[in-house]
């Protein structure tokens, strides 16, 4: 089925574009520590609000233009004529643990320590926006995946069991779902976040938020899956499996899951953006990721100073653009997937 999907996506230009964008985004996220020249916490107060540095070619080697601060209060920098620093590739930089395990210090590009390379400018404390975007992507892009895994698993189990067994099980499950859907989620989040804050480290807060989000989110999925399970239950191949004595557990996983898979995939793709946006919104409200951690939502929140607008510090709004691109791409990909899956489903149903 996965193979079939890839084949069908590769037929559609829109699908190929989406897959490419997402592929690049996720590869960048996975190798963010290697790709980022600095640590996200690496400050340089002398270079606050530094604009993106120019890259020049000198003797066929890329060099970084050196800047001079003209007016510290207005964050104005002027390039120093003729002064450049060479960029060295695969040089050792700040130490890190690749994927939290392998100790390393090789980074894709570096400049000598006396100067700084700001591909996408720096923020108010002179931290590299490019590096922070990459590190932030680890949070912002994985949150959707982890969230959706929890949501879909819970949704499938509860919805599938309710639809398959019906009767009292169904009744109990659906009342629970209605209860969860009725809970005002934003208030619950704020309350839980407040109550749990003192028990968790800031880094762990990330996981807590995902779990809270998906514990609220599964109910909607469960209700839809239950409806589909109810109709699957009447299909004769499920009856045939029962007649041959197949266990309920296996019927759920061998007969229901593969037939719901295409729906689950489309639903997952379409709801990942919701998680990305939710994380951004929470971080923006100060309820999500906290300093010194980083995420796109948090970066966006830090960009909401008046200064950013009056001094045209446009690079600080790039996390917003990153969220925008990711969300749009996931939505379009979800639509492409639905187009692929739907006619097939109709054919199967005859």
């Amino acid at each position, binding site marked *: 089925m996965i193979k079939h999907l890839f084949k069908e996506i590769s037929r559609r230009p829109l699908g190929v574009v989406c897959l490419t964008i997402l592929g690049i985004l996720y590869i960048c996220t996975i190798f963010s520590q290697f790709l980022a020249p600095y640590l996200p916490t690496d400050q340089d107060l002398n270079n606050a609000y530094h604009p993106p540095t120019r890259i020049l070619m000198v003797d066929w080697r890329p060099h970084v233009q050196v800047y001079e601060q003209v007016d510290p209060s207005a964050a104005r920098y002027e390039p120093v004529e003729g002064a450049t620093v060479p960029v060295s590739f695969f040089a050792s930089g700040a130490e890190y643990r690749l994927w939290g395990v392998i100790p390393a210090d090789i980074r894709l590009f570096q400049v000598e320590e006396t100067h700084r390379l700001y591909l996408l400018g720096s923020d108010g404390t002179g931290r590299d926006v490019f590096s922070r975007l990459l590190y932030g992507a680890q949070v912002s892009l994985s949150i959707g995946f982890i969230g959706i895994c929890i949501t879909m698993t819970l949704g499938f189990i509860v919805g599938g069991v309710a639809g398959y067994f019906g009767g009292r099980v169904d009744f109990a499950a659906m009342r629970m779902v209605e209860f969860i859907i009725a809970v005002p989620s934003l208030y619950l989040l704020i309350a839980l976040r407040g109550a749990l804050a003192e028990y968790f480290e800031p880094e762990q807060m990330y996981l807590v938020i995902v779990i809270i989000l998906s514990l609220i989110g599964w109910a909607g999925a469960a209700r839809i899956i239950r409806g589909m399970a109810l109709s699957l239950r009447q299909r004769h191949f499920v009856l045939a499996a029962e007649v041959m*004595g*197949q266990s309920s557990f296996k019927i759920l996983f061998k007969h229901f899951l593969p*037939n719901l898979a295409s729906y689950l995939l489309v639903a997952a793709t379409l709801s990942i953006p919701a998680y990305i946006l939710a994380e951004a919104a929470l971080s923006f409200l100060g309820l999500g990721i906290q300093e010194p951690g980083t995420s796109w939502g948090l970066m966006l929140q830090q960009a909401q100073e008046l200064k950013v607008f009056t001094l045209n510090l446009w690079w600080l709004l790039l996390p917003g653009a990153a969220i925008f691109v990711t969300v749009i791409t996931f939505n379009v990909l979800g639509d492409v997937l639905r187009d692929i899956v739907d006619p097939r489903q109709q054919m199967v149903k005859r």
Partner: protein
Amino acid sequence: MSAFHLKVLIMHNTSNSYSSAMAGPETGRISISSSPEGIKPLLEVKNLKVYFPVHGGLLRRIRGYVHAVDDVSFNVSSGSTVGLVGESGSGKTTIGRCLVRLIRPTAGSIRYLGVETGSLSKKTFFPYRKKIQMIFQDPFNSLNPRMSVEQILGEPLSIHFPQMNIEQRRDRAAGLLRQVGLDPDHLRRYPHQFSGGQRQRIGIARALAVEPEFIICDEPVSALDVSVQATIINLLQDLQEELGLTYLFIAHDLAIVEHISNYVLVMNQGKIVEQASAEDIYRSPQHPYTIKLLEAVPRL
């Protein structure tokens, strides 16, 4: 029919309760047991009732009951084919499903080889799942579209023959395909790659996989083209001869039922209104409903 098949009998064990199940006095045909003395029928159904509750109102209280199957009794003897004919909504499918416990009967007894199976627990009924199998009506609906033929046929094998390894299972699946007249090379194909008749053959192969004794054929040909119907009917008859199977053949078309069955039960509105040998049903139908069914069969 070959001599192998025993004559079917429908016995009146308790004639009082039985005749009350008949629709009226004009249907009082007495069927005479022609089975050898002392041989128990394979299946005995006695006073079977299935009532479905009708819910209504705000609290979904039970408002009343639909009498889907209302006091039905019949027997099926080993090696025979009993036809169950009636219109949609007559309760014939419900009876079939009761026998394999897809539906729990409200009252009555179902005895398989003398054992009361109606009251068995899920676990103790499990061995009967190997003996009683079912073939479904809609060949487009009865095969999981996401499973290959090998997986479809392998599923019952893995349940009832857990000692088989993958190769043995594949060999058996290929053998089953050959048995139902399909190419064993098609094991890796998926249901949508087959025509309706071929799918029904796969459905039959799946039922045969566990080496059953008794197969309930629930409208196995009514969704098929007339030309394909004939091939499936012939296949079912060949398999019966070869494997000594017993069939309960459920259909709405009396012509097909009359062709394949030794004994025919005519059902209307949850009750068996007439039962007789296939020949008697055709030659001298008693109940007006049977006559109506006979008249509906197209003639050339």
